């Protein structure tokens, strides 16, 4: 199995799906030029500029255009360069992409993939660093996935493109140049399935995207102190695979949720509620969250460092939960 970066795995997934299905089209700012990080490099050369389409900076209209193309038989992939700009396309995404299947009584299907990168990396400030996944997961009709490693990035993206529903595929910019083994060829990760990334006995941590790596580091360090942590990557936030989390909590009796989005009203709140409904009597300590403060993302490196949760905060939360 070859080793690839997260970014290369996404590009590989796009390449395979565009080869596999001539109705797959890619729309976005600068996509025919490879985009700001090079994710789509070479695709226009391989598939032509009629299928890898550079668009003006008109996010709302481009999103609507892709939805309209989906109603007419295409399987579009829209790239929104930063998740911060998805705000400009939320009307089309929420009012049309998410609802048209339902509102049409099943007459319409919207097989749309929205690729968007999020997160804190490189002190880019409040308009290029947000994590808005819980806004999206709140919308009936949208599927929301977040990949934490190259293999999942490829497999989830391919599954998203083949899905007959709008899927928001959230990439973390801070993971683009991380490496991992990526299966070649046909490799699909099912949407709606979490994965146990590390087995453990004493406590469960659910962590998304870039927070998974920090959590695995924390788990490793804690294991040398005799604390065994089970780590779950939900991979899909909507629909959420609550069974995998609940069965882990029934084993460990403790749960911490880690995400880079602000803590208040984040996806952790939903996970905590669902888990306490299903496993309240198994819990030996309150469910805790480790997440960003309720503030915009600051620009200064000195402040950004304080904003992002990391290994230290995770270890502290684990020790508090276990009281040791």
């Amino acid at each position: 199995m070859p080793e690839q970066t997260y970014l290369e795995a996404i590009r590989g997934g796009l390449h395979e799906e565009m080869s596999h299905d001539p109705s797959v089209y890619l729309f976005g700012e600068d996509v025919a030029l490879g985009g700001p990080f090079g994710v789509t490099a070479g695709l226009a050369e391989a598939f032509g500029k009629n299928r890898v389409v550079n668009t003006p900076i008109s996010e709302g209209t481009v999103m609507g255009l892709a939805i309209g193309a989906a109603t007419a038989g295409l399987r579009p992939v829209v790239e929104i360069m930063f998740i911060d700009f998805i705000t400009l396309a939320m009307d089309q995404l929420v009012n049309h992409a998410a609802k048209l299947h339902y509102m049409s009584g099943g007459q319409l299907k919207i097989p749309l993939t929205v690729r968007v990168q999020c997160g804190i990396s490189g002190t880019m400030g409040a308009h290029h660093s947000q994590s808005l996944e819980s806004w999206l997961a709140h919308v009936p009709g949208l599927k929301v996935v977040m990949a934490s490693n190259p293999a999942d990035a490829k497999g989830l993206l391919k599954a998203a493109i083949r899905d007959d529903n709008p899927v928001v595929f959230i990439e973390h910019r801070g993971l683009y140049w991380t490496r991992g083994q990526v299966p070649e060829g046909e490799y699909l990760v099912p949407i709606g399935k979490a994965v146990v990334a590390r087995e453990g006995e004493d406590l469960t941590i659910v962590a998304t995207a870039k927070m998974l790596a920090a959590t695995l580091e924390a788990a490793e360090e804690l294991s040398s102190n005799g604390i065994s942590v089970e780590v779950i990557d939900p991979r899909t936030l909507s629909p959420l695979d609550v069974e995998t989390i609940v069965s882990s909590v029934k084993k460990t009796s403790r749960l911490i949720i880690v995400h880079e989005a602000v803590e208040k009203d984040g996806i952790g709140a939903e996970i905590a509620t669902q888990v306490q409904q299903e496993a309240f009597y198994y819990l030996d300590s309150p469910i805790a969250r480790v997440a960003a403060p309720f503030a915009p993302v600051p620009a200064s490196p000195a402040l950004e460092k304080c904003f992002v949760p990391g290994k230290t905060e995770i270890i502290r939360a684990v020790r508090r939960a276990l009281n040791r």
Partner: protein
Amino acid sequence: MVTKRENPTELVPLLRTMWLIRAFEEKVSALYAMREIRGLLHLGIGQEAVAVGTCSLLRTDDYVFGGHRSHGHAIAKGADINRLMAEIAGRATGYCAGKGGSMHIVALDAGFVTATGVVGGTIPLALGAAFAAKEKSKGQVAVVFFGDGAGQAGAFHESLNIASLWRLPVIFVCENNGYAEFTPLSSHTLIERLARHAQTYKIPSNTVDGNDLLEVREAMTKAVQHARTGKGPAFVECLTHRLRGHYEGDPAKYRELSELAEWKEKDPIARFTRELKHRKVVADKDIAAIESEARKLTEQAAQFALASPWPAPGEVASQVTA
């Protein structure tokens, strides 16, 4: 004016369709007053010539998109009025099984792709259908109906720019009825002829009397031909007026009664009827028969709708995803 291209006997079905829309919407209004139909209703009574003048030139496989005032567009495109009435009445037999309602009509069998509750919201969708049509090369076009209120929305300007840039086979049909909800257009913009925006974006455009069916048809014939033959988008602004309020129940106090009376004089059905009589294409008895047939069909649609079952409670969260 009847142009050379118009065959007089082909004009009679256009009168029938206009009457079908008028009778349908008057029935909807009556059912609303009786509380048999609920919710938020926006009627296009008085604007029928735009819907019929446009859709009568389209193929079933052309894509049509509407807005919140689109019962007439769907009927003109060939939607089944029984299923449409049932949808507006919230019944299980409606086009969308009661999940869409008046503002969210989808009649895919007729090529009416979708309407929307968001002003200007379907303009970008029409671009996407036009993009797909261009890629499929079957000569299909996309048409989107919107009002003057949409002309101040970002989606409108972004869409005109992209359609022009990519030469998409889309026809923008602006029903300029002079009011964006309660406010006259002059309070929203200094550019009261929306076709001027099309000129800015280098899209061929025309402003026509939207209550003159044949004038609408003439402009649309050129626009559809332009788009269908790969020459890119076209824009037709139709000056018209809704004879009802913004929504059913709107007392429309913002409109002078004299203005309403003036527009009633320009009723598109009466004008087209006079034209047909003048041309001796129809006689009074034919006209009466056309109206009574339309009323009979809409009465049947109402009976079908009201006799239809409500959606089952279990449907509330079904079809959220495909």
